[in-house]
Protein backbone atom coordinates (compact mmCIF):
# COMPACT_ATOMS: atom_id res chain seq x y z
CA UNK A 1 0.00 0.00 0.00
CA UNK A 2 2.75 2.32 1.01
CA UNK A 3 4.39 1.48 -2.30
CA UNK A 4 1.38 2.57 -4.27
CA UNK A 5 1.33 5.89 -2.52
CA UNK A 6 4.96 6.42 -3.43
CA UNK A 7 4.27 5.54 -7.04
CA UNK A 8 1.19 7.73 -7.11
CA UNK A 9 3.10 10.68 -5.78
CA UNK A 10 6.06 10.13 -8.08
CA UNK A 11 4.06 9.56 -11.23
CA UNK A 12 3.60 13.17 -12.43
CA UNK A 13 7.31 13.80 -12.04
CA UNK A 14 8.15 10.58 -13.89
CA UNK A 15 5.66 11.18 -16.66
CA UNK A 16 7.27 14.53 -17.41
CA UNK A 17 10.36 12.50 -18.17
CA UNK A 18 8.47 10.81 -21.01
CA UNK A 19 8.49 14.08 -22.91
CA UNK A 20 12.25 14.30 -22.53
CA UNK A 21 12.74 10.64 -23.38
CA UNK A 22 10.54 10.74 -26.46
CA UNK A 23 11.95 14.08 -27.57
CA UNK A 24 15.43 12.66 -27.27
CA UNK A 25 14.61 9.42 -29.05
CA UNK A 26 12.65 10.97 -31.91
CA UNK A 27 15.17 13.77 -32.52
CA UNK A 28 18.04 11.33 -32.48
CA UNK A 29 16.24 8.93 -34.84
CA UNK A 30 15.50 11.82 -37.16
CA UNK A 31 19.09 13.06 -37.08
CA UNK A 32 20.28 9.52 -37.66
CA UNK A 33 17.98 9.23 -40.65
CA UNK A 34 19.06 12.54 -42.18
CA UNK A 35 22.71 11.57 -41.90
CA UNK A 36 22.25 7.84 -42.44
CA UNK A 37 20.60 8.04 -45.86
CA UNK A 38 23.39 10.01 -47.57
CA UNK A 39 25.95 7.83 -45.85
CA UNK A 40 24.36 4.70 -47.28
CA UNK A 41 24.16 6.22 -50.74
CA UNK A 42 27.81 7.22 -50.50
CA UNK A 43 28.70 3.74 -49.39
CA UNK A 44 27.10 2.15 -52.42
CA UNK A 45 27.62 4.72 -55.15
CA UNK A 46 30.54 6.79 -53.86
CA UNK A 47 34.17 6.76 -54.90
CA UNK A 48 36.46 4.34 -53.14
CA UNK A 49 37.69 7.14 -50.86
CA UNK A 50 34.17 8.09 -49.90
CA UNK A 51 33.43 4.47 -49.14
CA UNK A 52 36.52 4.16 -46.97
CA UNK A 53 35.75 7.31 -45.05
CA UNK A 54 32.16 6.30 -44.39
CA UNK A 55 33.31 2.83 -43.44
CA UNK A 56 35.56 4.28 -40.75
CA UNK A 57 32.79 6.55 -39.49
CA UNK A 58 30.43 3.61 -39.14
CA UNK A 59 33.08 1.40 -37.57
CA UNK A 60 33.80 4.11 -35.00
CA UNK A 61 30.25 4.82 -33.97
CA UNK A 62 29.23 1.19 -33.89
CA UNK A 63 32.31 0.05 -32.05
CA UNK A 64 32.12 2.35 -29.04
CA UNK A 65 29.83 1.84 -26.06
CA UNK A 66 27.18 4.50 -25.81
CA UNK A 67 28.46 5.49 -22.38
CA UNK A 68 31.96 6.08 -23.71
CA UNK A 69 30.59 8.13 -26.60
CA UNK A 70 28.57 10.27 -24.21
CA UNK A 71 31.56 10.92 -21.95
CA UNK A 72 33.89 11.50 -24.88
CA UNK A 73 31.65 14.02 -26.62
CA UNK A 74 29.89 15.70 -23.72
CA UNK A 75 32.81 16.15 -21.35
CA UNK A 76 35.57 16.02 -23.95
CA UNK A 77 35.21 16.88 -27.62
CA UNK A 78 32.30 19.34 -27.47
CA UNK A 79 34.11 21.33 -24.79
CA UNK A 80 37.37 21.14 -26.66
CA UNK A 81 35.91 22.78 -29.75
CA UNK A 82 34.23 25.40 -27.60
CA UNK A 83 30.68 24.11 -27.88
CA UNK A 84 28.78 24.60 -24.67
CA UNK A 85 25.83 22.31 -25.12
CA UNK A 86 23.13 21.29 -22.72
CA UNK A 87 23.13 17.64 -21.74
CA UNK A 88 19.97 17.11 -23.77
CA UNK A 89 21.35 18.55 -27.00
CA UNK A 90 24.62 16.72 -26.53
CA UNK A 91 22.68 13.51 -26.02
CA UNK A 92 20.63 14.08 -29.19
CA UNK A 93 23.80 14.65 -31.17
CA UNK A 94 25.61 11.61 -29.78
CA UNK A 95 22.66 9.25 -30.08
CA UNK A 96 21.86 10.67 -33.52
CA UNK A 97 25.38 10.28 -34.90
CA UNK A 98 25.54 6.79 -33.50
CA UNK A 99 22.16 5.93 -34.94
CA UNK A 100 23.20 7.28 -38.33
CA UNK A 101 25.87 4.60 -38.43
CA UNK A 102 23.34 1.86 -37.72
CA UNK A 103 20.74 3.30 -40.06
CA UNK A 104 23.28 3.68 -42.84
CA UNK A 105 23.95 -0.04 -42.61
CA UNK A 106 20.27 -0.87 -42.80
CA UNK A 107 19.75 1.36 -45.84
CA UNK A 108 22.88 0.11 -47.54
CA UNK A 109 21.66 -3.45 -47.20
CA UNK A 110 18.36 -2.52 -48.81
CA UNK A 111 19.98 -0.60 -51.64
CA UNK A 112 22.24 -3.52 -52.40
CA UNK A 113 19.39 -5.98 -52.27
CA UNK A 114 17.73 -4.08 -55.11
CA UNK A 115 20.51 -5.17 -57.45
CA UNK A 116 21.95 -3.41 -60.46
CA UNK A 117 18.90 -3.81 -62.67
CA UNK A 118 16.86 -0.95 -61.28
CA UNK A 119 19.66 1.54 -61.76
CA UNK A 120 20.43 0.26 -65.25
CA UNK A 121 16.80 0.49 -66.28
CA UNK A 122 16.53 4.06 -65.00
CA UNK A 123 19.72 5.03 -66.78
CA UNK A 124 18.57 3.39 -69.98
CA UNK A 125 15.65 5.82 -69.94
CA UNK A 126 18.05 8.72 -69.76
CA UNK A 127 17.85 9.40 -66.03
CA UNK A 128 20.98 10.78 -64.42
CA UNK A 129 22.38 8.67 -61.60
CA UNK A 130 21.28 11.27 -59.08
CA UNK A 131 17.70 11.27 -60.34
CA UNK A 132 17.67 7.49 -60.48
CA UNK A 133 18.84 7.26 -56.87
CA UNK A 134 16.26 9.80 -55.74
CA UNK A 135 13.26 8.56 -57.76
CA UNK A 136 13.89 4.86 -58.15
CA UNK A 137 16.44 3.52 -55.69
CA UNK A 138 15.62 5.38 -52.47
CA UNK A 139 11.82 4.99 -52.55
CA UNK A 140 12.28 1.24 -52.79
CA UNK A 141 15.25 0.96 -50.46
CA UNK A 142 13.55 2.98 -47.74
CA UNK A 143 10.46 0.78 -47.92
CA UNK A 144 12.59 -2.33 -47.71
CA UNK A 145 14.35 -0.81 -44.71
CA UNK A 146 11.26 -0.38 -42.60
CA UNK A 147 11.40 -3.74 -40.79
CA UNK A 148 15.07 -3.25 -39.92
CA UNK A 149 14.49 0.38 -39.18
CA UNK A 150 11.60 -0.41 -36.83
CA UNK A 151 14.09 -2.15 -34.58
CA UNK A 152 15.99 1.09 -34.25
CA UNK A 153 13.17 2.62 -32.26
CA UNK A 154 13.09 0.21 -29.30
CA UNK A 155 16.89 -0.02 -29.39
CA UNK A 156 17.18 3.74 -29.21
CA UNK A 157 14.55 3.88 -26.50
CA UNK A 158 16.41 1.53 -24.18
CA UNK A 159 19.69 3.24 -24.98
CA UNK A 160 18.29 6.65 -24.21
CA UNK A 161 18.23 5.65 -20.54
CA UNK A 162 22.03 5.71 -20.54
CA UNK A 163 21.93 9.49 -20.93
CA UNK A 164 21.21 9.39 -17.22
CA UNK A 165 24.99 9.29 -16.94
CA UNK A 166 25.31 12.87 -18.17
CA UNK A 167 22.22 14.07 -16.34
CA UNK A 168 19.57 14.32 -19.05
CA UNK A 169 16.26 14.58 -17.22
CA UNK A 170 14.66 11.57 -18.84
CA UNK A 171 12.51 8.94 -17.15
CA UNK A 172 15.25 6.96 -15.44
CA UNK A 173 17.12 10.02 -14.20
CA UNK A 174 13.94 11.23 -12.58
CA UNK A 175 13.23 7.76 -11.20
CA UNK A 176 16.66 7.62 -9.69
CA UNK A 177 16.16 11.02 -8.15
CA UNK A 178 12.99 9.93 -6.41
CA UNK A 179 14.33 6.52 -5.50
CA UNK A 180 17.24 8.02 -3.62
CA UNK A 181 14.92 10.41 -1.80
CA UNK A 182 12.11 8.09 -0.80
CA UNK A 183 14.19 5.01 -0.06
CA UNK A 184 11.64 3.04 -2.09
CA UNK A 185 13.78 2.04 -5.06
CA UNK A 186 11.89 -1.10 -6.12
CA UNK A 187 8.46 0.34 -6.90
CA UNK A 188 10.00 3.38 -8.56
CA UNK A 189 12.37 1.45 -10.81
CA UNK A 190 9.65 -1.01 -11.72
CA UNK A 191 7.39 1.88 -12.65
CA UNK A 192 10.16 3.25 -14.86
CA UNK A 193 10.53 -0.16 -16.48
CA UNK A 194 6.82 -0.31 -17.19
CA UNK A 195 6.87 3.17 -18.69
CA UNK A 196 9.62 2.07 -21.07
CA UNK A 197 7.74 -1.12 -21.94
CA UNK A 198 4.63 0.85 -22.78
CA UNK A 199 6.58 3.37 -24.87
CA UNK A 200 8.33 0.56 -26.68
CA UNK A 201 5.19 -1.45 -27.30
CA UNK A 202 2.99 1.42 -28.47
CA UNK A 203 5.76 2.76 -30.72
CA UNK A 204 6.12 -0.65 -32.35
CA UNK A 205 2.37 -0.80 -32.95
CA UNK A 206 2.45 2.56 -34.70
CA UNK A 207 5.40 1.46 -36.81
CA UNK A 208 3.54 -1.70 -37.82
CA UNK A 209 0.59 0.33 -38.98
CA UNK A 210 2.95 2.57 -40.92
CA UNK A 211 4.56 -0.49 -42.45
CA UNK A 212 1.21 -1.72 -43.72
CA UNK A 213 0.42 1.70 -45.15
CA UNK A 214 3.48 1.92 -47.37
CA UNK A 215 3.53 -1.70 -48.46
CA UNK A 216 3.74 -2.19 -52.19
CA UNK A 217 0.83 -4.37 -53.33
CA UNK A 218 1.80 -7.93 -54.13
CA UNK A 219 5.31 -7.36 -52.87
CA UNK A 220 6.38 -9.95 -50.33
CA UNK A 221 9.58 -8.98 -48.61
Amino acid at each position, binding site marked *: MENFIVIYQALPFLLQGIITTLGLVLSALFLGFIIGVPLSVGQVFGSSWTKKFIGIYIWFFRGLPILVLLFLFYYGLFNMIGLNLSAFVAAVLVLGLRSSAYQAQIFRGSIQSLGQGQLLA*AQSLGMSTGKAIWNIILPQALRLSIPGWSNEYPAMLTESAVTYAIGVMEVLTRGNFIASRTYKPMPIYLTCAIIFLILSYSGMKILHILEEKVRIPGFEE
Partner: protein
Amino acid sequence: MKGPEGMNQKKELILRIKDIHKSFGGKEVLKGISFDVYKGETKVIIGPSGMGKSTLLRCINQLTFPDQGTIWLRDQEVTHHNLREINLFRQKIGMVFQDFNLFDHLDAVRNVEIALIKVKGMKKEEAREKAMHELKKVGLGKQASLYPAQLSGGQKQRVSIARALAMDPEVMLFDEPTSALDPELIGEVLGVMQKLAREGMTMVVITHEMGFARSVADEIIFLEKGKLLESGPPEILFYQPKYERTRRFLFKLTELYGDLNGKK
Protein backbone atom coordinates in the same frame (compact mmCIF):
# COMPACT_ATOMS: atom_id res chain seq x y z
CA MET B 1 30.96 15.02 -85.65
CA LYS B 2 29.51 14.27 -89.02
CA GLY B 3 28.34 10.75 -89.53
CA PRO B 4 28.99 8.72 -92.62
CA GLU B 5 26.40 8.84 -95.34
CA GLY B 6 24.76 5.57 -96.29
CA MET B 7 25.72 4.25 -99.67
CA ASN B 8 22.18 3.33 -100.35
CA GLN B 9 20.09 6.42 -101.03
CA LYS B 10 16.84 4.99 -99.75
CA LYS B 11 18.24 3.65 -96.50
CA GLU B 12 18.36 6.03 -93.58
CA LEU B 13 21.16 5.22 -91.15
CA ILE B 14 20.08 5.10 -87.51
CA LEU B 15 22.93 3.38 -85.71
CA ARG B 16 26.50 2.88 -86.75
CA ILE B 17 28.64 0.68 -84.55
CA LYS B 18 32.28 0.77 -85.39
CA ASP B 19 35.14 -1.33 -84.06
CA ILE B 20 33.88 -1.72 -80.50
CA HIS B 21 36.31 -3.22 -78.02
CA LYS B 22 35.62 -4.01 -74.40
CA SER B 23 37.58 -5.87 -71.73
CA PHE B 24 36.68 -6.84 -68.20
CA GLY B 25 39.65 -7.34 -65.92
CA GLY B 26 42.05 -8.11 -68.74
CA LYS B 27 39.65 -10.47 -70.51
CA GLU B 28 38.64 -9.07 -73.88
CA VAL B 29 34.91 -9.65 -74.28
CA LEU B 30 34.38 -7.63 -77.45
CA LYS B 31 37.15 -7.66 -80.01
CA GLY B 32 36.18 -5.10 -82.57
CA ILE B 33 32.53 -5.26 -83.60
CA SER B 34 31.09 -3.18 -86.42
CA PHE B 35 27.68 -3.06 -88.07
CA ASP B 36 25.07 -0.58 -89.19
CA VAL B 37 21.38 -0.44 -88.43
CA TYR B 38 19.05 1.30 -90.85
CA LYS B 39 15.67 2.79 -90.20
CA GLY B 40 12.90 0.25 -89.87
CA GLU B 41 15.33 -2.60 -89.78
CA THR B 42 15.32 -5.44 -87.26
CA LYS B 43 18.71 -6.88 -86.44
CA VAL B 44 18.84 -10.10 -84.48
CA ILE B 45 22.00 -10.99 -82.60
CA ILE B 46 22.59 -14.62 -81.76
CA GLY B 47 25.53 -16.43 -80.23
CA PRO B 48 26.59 -18.62 -77.33
CA SER B 49 26.07 -17.16 -73.88
CA GLY B 50 28.85 -15.35 -72.11
CA MET B 51 30.22 -14.18 -75.45
CA GLY B 52 29.48 -10.50 -75.02
CA LYS B 53 26.05 -10.01 -76.59
CA SER B 54 24.66 -8.12 -73.60
CA THR B 55 27.87 -6.17 -73.26
CA LEU B 56 27.60 -5.08 -76.89
CA LEU B 57 24.03 -3.93 -76.41
CA ARG B 58 24.94 -2.00 -73.29
CA CYS B 59 27.79 -0.33 -75.12
CA ILE B 60 25.28 1.05 -77.60
CA ASN B 61 23.47 3.12 -74.97
CA GLN B 62 26.59 3.60 -72.88
CA LEU B 63 25.44 1.63 -69.87
CA THR B 64 28.84 0.10 -70.41
CA PHE B 65 31.58 2.30 -71.82
CA PRO B 66 33.52 0.65 -74.62
CA ASP B 67 37.31 0.81 -74.33
CA GLN B 68 37.66 1.61 -77.98
CA GLY B 69 35.48 2.24 -80.99
CA THR B 70 32.70 4.61 -81.91
CA ILE B 71 28.93 4.57 -82.00
CA TRP B 72 26.79 7.00 -83.96
CA LEU B 73 23.11 7.66 -83.56
CA ARG B 74 22.13 9.13 -86.93
CA ASP B 75 24.88 11.68 -87.53
CA GLN B 76 25.78 12.23 -83.91
CA GLU B 77 28.54 10.45 -82.10
CA VAL B 78 27.28 8.78 -78.91
CA THR B 79 30.64 7.73 -77.52
CA HIS B 80 33.11 10.03 -75.81
CA HIS B 81 30.58 12.34 -74.26
CA ASN B 82 29.92 13.54 -70.76
CA LEU B 83 27.14 11.96 -68.73
CA ARG B 84 24.67 14.78 -69.35
CA GLU B 85 24.80 14.29 -73.09
CA ILE B 86 24.78 10.53 -72.73
CA ASN B 87 21.50 10.83 -70.83
CA LEU B 88 20.09 12.64 -73.86
CA PHE B 89 21.16 9.84 -76.16
CA ARG B 90 19.75 7.21 -73.84
CA GLN B 91 16.33 8.79 -74.17
CA LYS B 92 16.48 8.10 -77.88
CA ILE B 93 17.66 4.53 -77.43
CA GLY B 94 15.06 2.34 -75.74
CA MET B 95 16.17 -0.73 -73.88
CA VAL B 96 14.34 -3.84 -72.72
CA PHE B 97 16.05 -6.13 -70.25
CA GLN B 98 15.96 -9.86 -69.84
CA ASP B 99 14.72 -9.59 -66.26
CA PHE B 100 12.33 -6.69 -66.92
CA ASN B 101 13.75 -4.36 -64.27
CA LEU B 102 10.41 -2.73 -63.71
CA PHE B 103 10.46 -0.26 -60.85
CA ASP B 104 8.88 -2.36 -58.14
CA HIS B 105 7.49 0.52 -56.11
CA LEU B 106 5.48 1.98 -58.99
CA ASP B 107 2.37 0.58 -60.63
CA ALA B 108 2.39 -0.14 -64.36
CA VAL B 109 1.32 3.27 -65.58
CA ARG B 110 3.68 5.10 -63.27
CA ASN B 111 6.49 2.87 -64.45
CA VAL B 112 5.82 4.13 -67.93
CA GLU B 113 5.36 7.78 -67.07
CA ILE B 114 8.11 8.36 -64.53
CA ALA B 115 10.84 9.04 -67.06
CA LEU B 116 8.50 11.25 -69.06
CA ILE B 117 8.03 13.40 -65.97
CA LYS B 118 11.45 13.26 -64.41
CA VAL B 119 13.57 13.17 -67.53
CA LYS B 120 11.55 14.84 -70.25
CA GLY B 121 9.90 17.26 -67.83
CA MET B 122 6.45 16.48 -69.21
CA LYS B 123 3.38 17.60 -67.28
CA LYS B 124 1.74 14.95 -65.16
CA GLU B 125 -1.56 14.73 -67.06
CA GLU B 126 0.17 14.71 -70.39
CA ALA B 127 2.55 12.00 -69.22
CA ARG B 128 -0.32 9.94 -67.86
CA GLU B 129 -2.13 10.15 -71.17
CA LYS B 130 0.94 9.16 -73.10
CA ALA B 131 1.66 6.31 -70.69
CA MET B 132 -1.88 4.97 -71.00
CA HIS B 133 -1.59 5.14 -74.75
CA GLU B 134 1.61 3.08 -74.69
CA LEU B 135 0.14 0.57 -72.28
CA LYS B 136 -2.87 0.10 -74.54
CA LYS B 137 -0.53 -0.44 -77.45
CA VAL B 138 1.01 -3.42 -75.67
CA GLY B 139 -2.43 -4.63 -74.66
CA LEU B 140 -2.28 -3.67 -70.99
CA GLY B 141 -4.75 -0.82 -70.73
CA LYS B 142 -6.64 -2.69 -68.03
CA GLN B 143 -3.57 -3.49 -65.94
CA ALA B 144 -2.41 0.11 -65.58
CA SER B 145 -2.85 0.29 -61.83
CA LEU B 146 -1.31 -3.08 -61.00
CA TYR B 147 2.11 -3.25 -59.40
CA PRO B 148 4.92 -5.30 -60.94
CA ALA B 149 4.53 -7.98 -58.29
CA GLN B 150 0.92 -8.39 -59.38
CA LEU B 151 1.76 -8.91 -63.06
CA SER B 152 2.78 -12.07 -64.88
CA GLY B 153 6.21 -12.23 -66.46
CA GLY B 154 4.81 -11.62 -69.91
CA GLN B 155 2.85 -8.62 -68.71
CA LYS B 156 5.89 -7.22 -66.94
CA GLN B 157 7.92 -7.45 -70.08
CA ARG B 158 5.19 -5.73 -72.07
CA VAL B 159 5.10 -2.90 -69.51
CA SER B 160 8.84 -2.54 -69.82
CA ILE B 161 8.47 -2.34 -73.60
CA ALA B 162 5.81 0.35 -73.16
CA ARG B 163 8.10 2.18 -70.77
CA ALA B 164 10.86 2.29 -73.34
CA LEU B 165 8.48 3.19 -76.18
CA ALA B 166 7.03 6.10 -74.24
CA MET B 167 10.28 7.97 -74.68
CA ASP B 168 9.74 7.88 -78.47
CA PRO B 169 13.08 6.25 -79.12
CA GLU B 170 14.74 6.11 -82.52
CA VAL B 171 15.78 2.55 -81.90
CA MET B 172 14.89 -0.19 -79.45
CA LEU B 173 17.38 -2.62 -77.95
CA PHE B 174 16.10 -5.95 -76.62
CA ASP B 175 18.34 -8.13 -74.47
CA GLU B 176 16.85 -11.62 -74.50
CA PRO B 177 13.38 -10.26 -73.73
CA THR B 178 11.75 -13.68 -73.49
CA SER B 179 14.34 -15.89 -71.88
CA ALA B 180 13.13 -15.25 -68.33
CA LEU B 181 9.57 -16.15 -69.29
CA ASP B 182 7.60 -19.35 -68.94
CA PRO B 183 7.09 -20.89 -72.37
CA GLU B 184 3.40 -20.09 -72.55
CA LEU B 185 4.07 -16.38 -71.97
CA ILE B 186 6.72 -15.97 -74.65
CA GLY B 187 4.20 -15.57 -77.44
CA GLU B 188 2.53 -12.44 -76.11
CA VAL B 189 5.85 -10.60 -75.88
CA LEU B 190 7.05 -11.75 -79.28
CA GLY B 191 3.68 -10.69 -80.66
CA VAL B 192 4.19 -7.14 -79.41
CA MET B 193 7.68 -7.06 -80.86
CA GLN B 194 6.47 -8.38 -84.17
CA LYS B 195 3.86 -5.66 -84.32
CA LEU B 196 6.51 -3.05 -83.53
CA ALA B 197 8.68 -4.31 -86.34
CA ARG B 198 5.79 -4.22 -88.78
CA GLU B 199 5.04 -0.64 -87.78
CA GLY B 200 8.56 0.30 -88.75
CA MET B 201 10.38 0.48 -85.43
CA THR B 202 14.12 0.07 -85.70
CA MET B 203 15.23 -2.76 -83.43
CA VAL B 204 18.30 -4.64 -82.30
CA VAL B 205 17.26 -7.88 -80.64
CA ILE B 206 19.26 -10.49 -78.83
CA THR B 207 17.15 -13.62 -78.90
CA HIS B 208 17.24 -17.33 -79.44
CA GLU B 209 13.67 -17.51 -80.64
CA MET B 210 14.45 -18.69 -84.13
CA GLY B 211 10.89 -18.52 -85.37
CA PHE B 212 10.80 -14.84 -84.47
CA ALA B 213 14.22 -14.24 -86.00
CA ARG B 214 13.19 -15.95 -89.22
CA SER B 215 9.99 -14.04 -89.68
CA VAL B 216 11.04 -10.61 -88.45
CA ALA B 217 14.79 -10.16 -88.80
CA ASP B 218 16.22 -8.34 -91.76
CA GLU B 219 19.64 -9.49 -90.76
CA ILE B 220 21.03 -11.98 -88.31
CA ILE B 221 24.37 -11.41 -86.66
CA PHE B 222 26.27 -14.33 -85.23
CA LEU B 223 28.54 -13.24 -82.43
CA GLU B 224 31.19 -15.62 -81.22
CA LYS B 225 34.17 -15.11 -78.93
CA GLY B 226 33.79 -11.34 -79.08
CA LYS B 227 33.80 -11.23 -82.87
CA LEU B 228 31.13 -10.89 -85.49
CA LEU B 229 31.67 -14.26 -87.12
CA GLU B 230 29.10 -13.88 -89.88
CA SER B 231 25.92 -12.07 -90.69
CA GLY B 232 23.23 -12.15 -93.32
CA PRO B 233 19.51 -12.36 -93.92
CA PRO B 234 17.83 -15.27 -92.16
CA GLU B 235 17.33 -17.37 -95.30
CA ILE B 236 21.04 -17.32 -96.01
CA LEU B 237 22.39 -17.56 -92.49
CA PHE B 238 20.03 -20.30 -91.43
CA TYR B 239 20.24 -22.48 -94.50
CA GLN B 240 23.65 -21.77 -96.01
CA PRO B 241 25.95 -20.52 -93.23
CA LYS B 242 29.52 -19.94 -94.29
CA TYR B 243 31.07 -21.39 -91.19
CA GLU B 244 30.83 -24.78 -89.61
CA ARG B 245 30.67 -23.10 -86.17
CA THR B 246 27.56 -21.18 -87.15
CA ARG B 247 25.95 -24.35 -88.44
CA ARG B 248 26.75 -26.20 -85.23
CA PHE B 249 25.38 -23.40 -83.04
CA LEU B 250 22.16 -23.24 -85.05
CA PHE B 251 21.83 -26.99 -84.83
CA LYS B 252 22.07 -26.80 -81.03
CA LEU B 253 19.51 -24.01 -80.95
CA THR B 254 17.01 -25.98 -82.97
CA GLU B 255 17.41 -28.84 -80.53
CA LEU B 256 16.66 -26.48 -77.66
CA TYR B 257 14.13 -24.09 -79.09
CA GLY B 258 12.47 -26.03 -81.89
CA ASP B 259 13.06 -25.79 -85.62
CA LEU B 260 13.70 -22.67 -87.60
CA ASN B 261 10.02 -22.16 -88.11
CA GLY B 262 9.58 -21.86 -84.40
CA LYS B 263 7.91 -25.26 -83.98
CA LYS B 264 9.09 -27.84 -81.55
